[in-house]
């Protein structure tokens, strides 16, 4: 654990995130221009999609991939129900806000996943390339369950279900992630080689600057936060722990290797702050972004990056050690 922590806290990616947090806390005027932040998030989606697609084009789609996909989709769909129950009772949130927050926790954070991949790879536990497909598949289901929860079965929303489904599946991050995945599959290794100096060599550096920005934004949001009570803050720590451990166990249970199990755990633990907030602004404009963004971005995201990924990784190693899925070689 200590070793993991040291590894985490000497990684430039994590250090830039911490720099962002600190800069905002000392009230520096450091800021990444808006269009650059947006472009970096698109770049990260495209790069991760391509990489996953190339990996799957090499490995093919086998039973493991299918079961990982199914596990991810089911988890994505069900996790919001668990989150919703806690948010409404312990968290004392109303129905609409509970549903909106629940959708965020059921869905995933691409950047958390990417950071985890970096850290896991550094520990010689690189997740399978197909986990990118699992990630993409987990973006949307939680939005659906969140909306069901927020609006009730009746669906008194001001948007038809058709419109809503359209919004969810044409959301820019989902389209780009899946599109790049398909391009990676079609182009394969040969196609990827041509563009890899841009999409692969530059990846970690862009991730550094993006996390610098996320650190700035997360901390500023924390400073301005009004609507987040201590109960909600506690939930924003509790959910990633429980979901992370459950997801990891699920991964090991369906026979994934340690790295991929940890990645599934991280996906369950992470809360969306790109795709889902955008969808919520449209589908549930009455919900308060001050709640769901502060919880997912300012609390859960730093907690995952700084602590929880390490915990999940250790747990995956522990579980696969027990079950022997890792071949006992550790």
């Amino acid at each position, binding site marked *: 654990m200590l070793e993991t922590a040291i590894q985490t806290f000497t990684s430039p990616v994590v250090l830039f995130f911490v720099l962002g947090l600190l800069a905002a806390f000392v009230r520096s005027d450091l800021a990444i221009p*808006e*269009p650059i*932040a*947006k472009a970096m*998030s698109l770049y990260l989606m495209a790069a991760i999609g391509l990489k996953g697609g190339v990996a799957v084009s090499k490995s093919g789609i086998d039973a493991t991939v299918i079961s990982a996909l199914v596990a991810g989709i089911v988890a994505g769909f069900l996790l919001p129900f668990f989150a919703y129950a806690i948010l409404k009772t312990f968290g004392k949130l109303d129905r609409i806000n509970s549903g909106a927050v629940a959708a965020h926790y059921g869905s995933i954070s691409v950047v958390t996943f990417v950071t985890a991949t970096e850290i896991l790879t550094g520990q010689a536990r690189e997740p399978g390339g197909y986990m990118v497909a699992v990630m993409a598949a987990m973006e949307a289901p939680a939005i659906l369950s969140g909306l069901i929860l927020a609006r009730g079965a009746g669906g008194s929303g001001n948007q038809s279900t058709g419109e809503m489904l359209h919004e969810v599946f044409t959301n820019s991050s989902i389209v780009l992630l899946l599109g790049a995945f398909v391009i990676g599959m079609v182009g394969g290794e040969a196609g990827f080689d041509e563009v890899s100096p841009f999409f692969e060599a530059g990846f970690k550096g862009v991730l550094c600057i993006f996390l610098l920005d996320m650190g700035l*934004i997360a901390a*500023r949001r924390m400073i*301005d936060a*009004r609507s987040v009570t201590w109960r909600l803050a506690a939930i924003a720590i509790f959910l990633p722990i429980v979901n992370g451990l459950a997801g990891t166990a699920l991964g090991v249970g369906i026979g994934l290797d340690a790295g991929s199990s940890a990645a599934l755990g991280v996906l369950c633990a992470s809360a969306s*702050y*790109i795709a889902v*907030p*955008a969808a919520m*602004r*449209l589908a549930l*404009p*009455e919900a*308060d*972004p*001050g709640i769901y*963004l502060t919880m997912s*971005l300012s609390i859960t995201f730093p907690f995952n990056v700084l602590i929880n990924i390490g915990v999940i990784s250790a747990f995956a190693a522990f579980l696969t050690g027990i079950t022997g899925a890792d071949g006992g070689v550790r």
Partner: protein
Amino acid sequence: MIETVTRKRIEILTDKALQKRVTDAIEKAGIIGWTILPVSSGKGREGVWREESVMGTDKVFVLTIASEENAQALAEALAPMLTNFGFLLSMWDVQVIRGERFT
């Protein structure tokens, strides 16, 4: 001297995500045109917001010039959204040239 006529200018601050609902309302009110301006940050009863396009918290300014009548219709149509969605709406009289363009 050039002839000017009086029209109503309406400006609405809204979430970028909801921009289409506002411009649809404008068109439904019988107004031909609108223009979108970017905004960077603000503060209201619900605290500070900043343009964060990654998370979709960005807002826009919608500006439209219309006849008194259509402007009233638009204000009526938007009023319910104002209360729930944190919009900002203000309107005033302006002089325009070639008023026939502004229905």
